[in-house]
């Protein structure tokens, strides 16, 4: 606690500190969406024919679909013709080295505390940077290549490894999966791609940093991670955006594929601009994330810390196909002011002896509405499947709400499913105990909240865990009465 307490205090009067805008020349296409726009995006990226066809197929599917109304979130209808679907910093396509990257961009990331210069890297994290719609830089590429690991931007992968893209793109989240996934498939501009070959354990954390900068744009990126037999990779994702009065849409798709004995660990610290105290502005974060444990004994683990976004709507899921495969989901979702979150997971058990664990912690403060929605589905073939779910909610203040909608669907009798949930507030006796020992009530609350989230934080890689704790401290600022 000693390490974080001063930082919370220091940040006490600070608001969203990543809310600045970078003045940079951008290559932006006009607002609106039609087949020509999709052709234009595809042409800009110099994509092979199969990609364009896939995009158009998705677009036609999207036209037939309706925006989902079932999430427990409320927002005015989005005008999809009022969004810019492509915006990129106007530099040369695919900078060869960091020297070619616009210095203004580098300064942005310095401000955000993201080390782009490899020599300055502390823990040795390879970073792929996505600015508005495109990936601007990827670090440590050469070192990873020695091991046969492919880590690059999505557009680069389309150019250089089309066979992998063609094989795996849309194999986990099909283009027709849902409204936002179809939209993403039609217009996605870039993202990260990672392939870890057979038996390789990725020596460093891979990371993508997403930044929305341009006004009126939507960000649509796509991440695809493939861990071949026996491979291991840990992947981090971070996000920020400037403060603006209008809402911006972020509709991403993440696909993970784990083959026999492979392991993927995917961590997210999501801190999009959440809107101001009156609930004005902020990012709509409508994301589809899904992992497929294709091989036997494979494992996919999702860890997420959701503190930003005006509205969060996402369900990182695991499809457990291989026998003995394992799915995990650890989540902390915090909603303050007028933020809304409808998040959770889906665990689909198909293979024998598959196991899944769900730990979800929701914290609501101010007028925040926090919903956990999860599904555990055990199919007939999943003999001996096991699931344990726990979702706890903490309420700070009497205007907020916490909701849980767990679905348990079991079609196999040799399986065991358990679900537990609780909702409570911080006890006055707990606060009193801390105060009695000279801890201010604000620190006491932050200490109790951190304790509440500990189970999830310890799943995060170390650097991220520190970051996440700080974030939680700031987001809770002012909600303690």
């Amino acid at each position, binding site marked *: 606690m000693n390490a974080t307490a001063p930082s919370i205090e220091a940040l006490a009067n600070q608001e969203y500190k990543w809310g600045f805008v970078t003045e940079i020349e951008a290559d932006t296409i006009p607002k609106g969406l039609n087949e020509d726009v999709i052709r234009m995006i595809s042409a800009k990226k110099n994509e092979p024919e199969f990609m364009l066809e896939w995009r158009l197929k998705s677009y036609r599917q999207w036209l037939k679909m309706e925006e989902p109304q079932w999430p427990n979130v409320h927002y005015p209808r989005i005008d999809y013709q009022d969004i810019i679907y492509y915006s990129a910093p106007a530099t040369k396509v695919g900078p060869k080295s960091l020297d070619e990257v616009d210095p203004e961009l580098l300064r942005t990331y310095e401000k955000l505390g993201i080390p782009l210069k490899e020599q300055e890297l502390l823990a040795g994290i390879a970073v792929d940077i996505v600015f508005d719609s495109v990936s601007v830089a990827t670090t440590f590429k050469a070192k990873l290549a020695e091991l046969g690991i492919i880590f690059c931007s999505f557009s680069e992968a389309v150019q250089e490894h089309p066979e992998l893209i063609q094989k795996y793109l849309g194999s986990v989240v099909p283009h027709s999966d849902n409204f936002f996934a179809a939209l993403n498939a039609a217009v996605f501009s870039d993202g990260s791609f990672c392939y870890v070959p057979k038996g390789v354990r990725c020596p460093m954390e891979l990371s993508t940093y997403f930044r929305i900068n341009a006004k009126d744009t939507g960000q649509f990126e796509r991440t695809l991670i493939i861990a071949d037999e026996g491979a291991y990779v840990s992947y981090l994702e971070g996000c920020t955006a400037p403060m603006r009065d209008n809402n911006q849409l972020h509709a991403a798709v993440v696909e993970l594929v784990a083959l026999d004995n492979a392991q993927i660990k995917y961590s997210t610290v999501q801190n999009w601009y959440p809107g101001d105290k009156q609930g004005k502005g902020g990012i709509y974060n409508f994301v589809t994330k899904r992992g497929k444990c294709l091989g036997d004994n494979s494992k996919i683990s999702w860890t997420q810390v959701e503190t930003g976004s005006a509205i969060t709507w996402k369900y990182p899921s695991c499809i457990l196909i291989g026998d003995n495969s394992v799915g995990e989901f650890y989540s902390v979702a915090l909603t303050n002011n007028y933020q809304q979150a409808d998040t959770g997971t889906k665990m689909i058990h198909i293979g024998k002896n598959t196991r899944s664990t769900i730990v979800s912690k929701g914290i609501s403060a101010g007028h925040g509405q926090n919903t956990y929605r999860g599904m555990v589905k055990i199919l007939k073939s999943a003999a001996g499947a096991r699931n344990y779910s726990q979702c706890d909610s903490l309420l700070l203040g009497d205007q907020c709400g916490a909701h849980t909608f767990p679905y348990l669907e079991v079609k196999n*009798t040799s399986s065991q499913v358990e679900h537990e949930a609780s909702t409570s507030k911080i006890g006055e006796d707990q606060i009193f105990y801390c105060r009695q020992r000279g801890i201010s009530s604000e620190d006491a609350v932050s200490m109790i909240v951190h304790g509440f989230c500990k189970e999830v934080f310890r799943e995060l890689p170390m650097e991220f865990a520190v970051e996440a704790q700080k974030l939680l401290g700031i987001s809770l600022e002012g909600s303690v009465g």
Partner: protein
Amino acid sequence: MTGIEPIRQDAARRVAELGFPTTRDEDWRFTNVSRIARTHFSAAPSDLSAWGEGQLEQRLVPYEGSPRLVFINGCYSPELSSLKLARGIRATSLREANGAVEAHLARYAVYQDRAFVALNTANFEDGACIEIPKGTVVEEPIHLVFLASGGDVPVISHPRNLVVIGPHSQATVVESYIGHGANYFTNAVTEIVAGDHSVVDHYKLQEEDERSFHVATLQVQLGRETNFSTHSISLGGGLVRNDINAVLAEGTEATVNGLYLPSGSQHVDNHTVIDHARPHGASHELYKGILSGASAAVFNGKIVVRPGAQKTDAKQTNKNLVLSENATINTKPELQIHADDVRCTHGATIGQLDEEAIFYLQSRGIGKEQARDLLTYAFARDIIDRIKVEPLRARLGKIVLERLHANRN
């Protein structure tokens, strides 16, 4: 019943607008009523011709001696009913009540978005009407028995009951649904209004024929500091859906328990909504299910804590024991909480008998089959033991044992 005529007309309009729910409706996701929607039902005849000699008497034995109201396919049968109640207590059919309780009738069960409630409201013929005045304690349980029968032509009945308990009063009401024959549909609605400081125990025992449809809604409006309990036991019916909606006031304590034992191809769906509208309420909910054969069970328990309903204490548990390979269970315990100073927990489990417990019994010389029966029985007994009406409790214990034997053979 002229005063509620506009309500009935409005309900009829809603029936036409709503149509039958489909699995695309969130509340009906796992229960497909297309078999009901496809069938053309005609009004059921109110005679006993479908029942064989002695068959009916045998089914009514458990209700001998205590006050009872008997309905045949939704119509009141004074011959089979026996009423020996103290003065001042009204226990009649709705028709006989002749509008005396119109202030309450059809005022609580919302039909605007519930097709089956609308269907009942628009079409009901008769039902029980119980009114207990202020400060009265009714010691004996009042039995409401609904006999239904089907045959070659699909028939439908809409029992509609109203129970009004005055302030500071106490009563026990037992609803029993007994059916015989194929192709019939019982679509019941019961409204209970409990006055301040009253104590109300409600039981519903459903023993419909396994070739029938049974849809029932229980709407409970509870006053301040009332103590309410309901136990819903589902034994029969081919396609069963129970909706329980309880609205709590300040300091209300509500217990909502249930037991379902589907086998064969039965489908049992229990939906409960406990609405903590005011502060200081407490609710306890325990639903248990034992599934065998190719049966399916659905449980959806929703707890709503309204803004300002501080100091609410809500607990909800759903436990399922799956005995066969082909059974399906869908459970969804929901919490919707809009107040901060509350304690709400819910839990759901789906599992099998504990192998170690079976081994323990075996090591003490009890056969494996017997050990399994014993543990299954104990699982159900947990609910049965909470029933306060002694004859009902004894009878249920017997039925569950018989079921276990039947399943084994």
